[in-house]
């Protein structure tokens, strides 16, 4: 195991940093070139990718968080049949993200899909679900919500169920209404769980690749940071620049993760 971790994790990590300081074409010899590769971070294409990724992350985290929280509230109590509903809401999470993207690609693009039939039936003519930056963003967020809502629902539900029912009872006796219970009891006690779902959603969204690579191929300015790394490495065939972008992304994510973990720890107490 130590060998696996060393060869397939530690060495690549060191190599990544080394590569970022080298001119390293996909084919052919490499040679050191200082910090030249880091000019990739000033590339307008990269900067646009960063903005799009941030926009996508914010929208996804909010929409997905709200939907998952709603679902968790709906199914948290045990009652007849609730298990079947939990399973159904979770089921999309068992399907791979690439398969999901291909499924929705068909849904958005095929004329015969129910989505396009509905739009036509409503007399709206033809709607291009992936044709502009805005519509592609909306369509992707919708798809991601379908795919991940059940997953986050499960995490939030576990958090909700670990809250002592006695506290709700006490709040009710003290005359609190449902909104007050939500804001004063449920949400504060759920903060560690909410923070965890936020960490997962933010990290996952910042590293988004499959959905946009498959749905739009990065067209209409929907390239994400990871798509930019892919473009640098395998289209421009410049692994050094791709490594430089990777190092920068990695640094930002580690700082973000450490900060968020600190936050969770502190709130956990």
């Amino acid at each position: 195991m130590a060998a696996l971790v060393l060869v397939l994790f530690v060495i690549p990590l060191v190599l990544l940093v080394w590569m970022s300081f080298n001119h390293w074409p996909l084919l052919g010899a490499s040679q050191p070139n200082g910090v030249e590769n880091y000019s990739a971070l000033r590339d307008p294409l990269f900067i646009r990718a960063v903005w799009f990724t941030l926009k996508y992350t914010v929208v996804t985290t909010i929409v997905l968080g709200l939907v998952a929280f709603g679902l968790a509230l709906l199914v948290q109590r045990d009652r007849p049949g609730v298990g079947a509903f939990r399973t159904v809401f979770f089921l999309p999470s068992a399907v791979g993200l690439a398969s999901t993207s291909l499924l929705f690609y068909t849904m958005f693009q095929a004329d015969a899909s129910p989505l396009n039939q509905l739009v036509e039936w409503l007399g709206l003519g033809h709607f291009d679900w992936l044709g502009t930056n805005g519509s592609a963003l909306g369509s992707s967020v919708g798809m991601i919500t379908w795919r991940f809502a059940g997953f986050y629902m499960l995490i939030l539900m576990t958090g909700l169920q670990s809250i002592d029912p006695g506290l709700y009872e006490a709040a009710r006796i003290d005359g609190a209404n449902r909104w007050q219970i939500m804001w004063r009891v449920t949400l504060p006690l759920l903060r560690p769980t909410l923070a965890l779902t936020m960490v997962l959603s933010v990290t996952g969204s910042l590293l988004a690749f499959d959905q946009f690579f498959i749905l739009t191929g990065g067209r209409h300015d929907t390239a994400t940071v990871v798509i930019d790394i892919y473009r640098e490495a395998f289209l421009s065939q410049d692994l050094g620049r791709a490594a430089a972008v990777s190092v920068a992304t990695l640094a930002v994510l580690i700082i973000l993760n450490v900060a968020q973990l600190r936050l969770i720890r502190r709130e956990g107490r």
Partner: protein
Amino acid sequence: MRRTGFYVTCAALAVLFLFPMVWTAYSSVHGRQADGTEGFGVDNYRRLADFGIGIGTYLVNTLVVAVVAVTVTVVTTTLGGYAMARLAFPGRNLLFIVTLAILMVPYTTILVPLYILLGWIGLQNSLVGLGLVMAVLQLPFGLFMMRNSFEALPVELEEAALIDGCTVGGALRRVLLRGVLPGIVTIALFSFLAAWNEFVAPLIFLTDGEKFTLPVALFNLSVGNLGSVDFGALQAGVATSALPCVVVFLILQRYYVRGFTSGALKG
């Protein structure tokens, strides 16, 4: 009244969640058939089977990656988890911390050096190489889970086996493995789903069309030929790729939720 409201809401949402999958499954066996009629038939699957060098090869490739990933993950995390929980050896904490550090480093950022490294050790464009990378990604979760599973078993159980004449290996095999079996199933399930569905790693590591896994092959199908995409075959492909995951998940659901609550949340 409120109860009715609950069931109506849930049922409506359930339709929403199931609809895309049901529609895909339905349209994969429905549509224009070879004889020109509109209706049920396996034509989409027939065209899918002939796509590229044949869907059968892609299925086998994907299975190879998944089997390598699951086997390596289960064996290393079981032995590793046992060592972490029971044995004292130099560098134990360091190894544990470095393994958990994999969680902090998103693997998409080390794909480029991994691509070079696999080339150096002759595992570029190799299904085994891809399976190993997928296994490494599962190590932190698996190791954490197995260490906790072993720690939850009383040491007396093992001592009793040793007194009764078992060797350390025998005790591990006959007594302890029984106790940690749920943990093993959970890890196998997680790594199977991850390896079967992985997209970006095979996209980068596999350069030879004969080696493609199902998601990469289906992506090529979706890119289409001269601007026309065979959506029927694509839907058959999505159904083929999703079905094993849905079935495995439904059978092992209990273990999935367990892995979630014990591993993911307390981490």
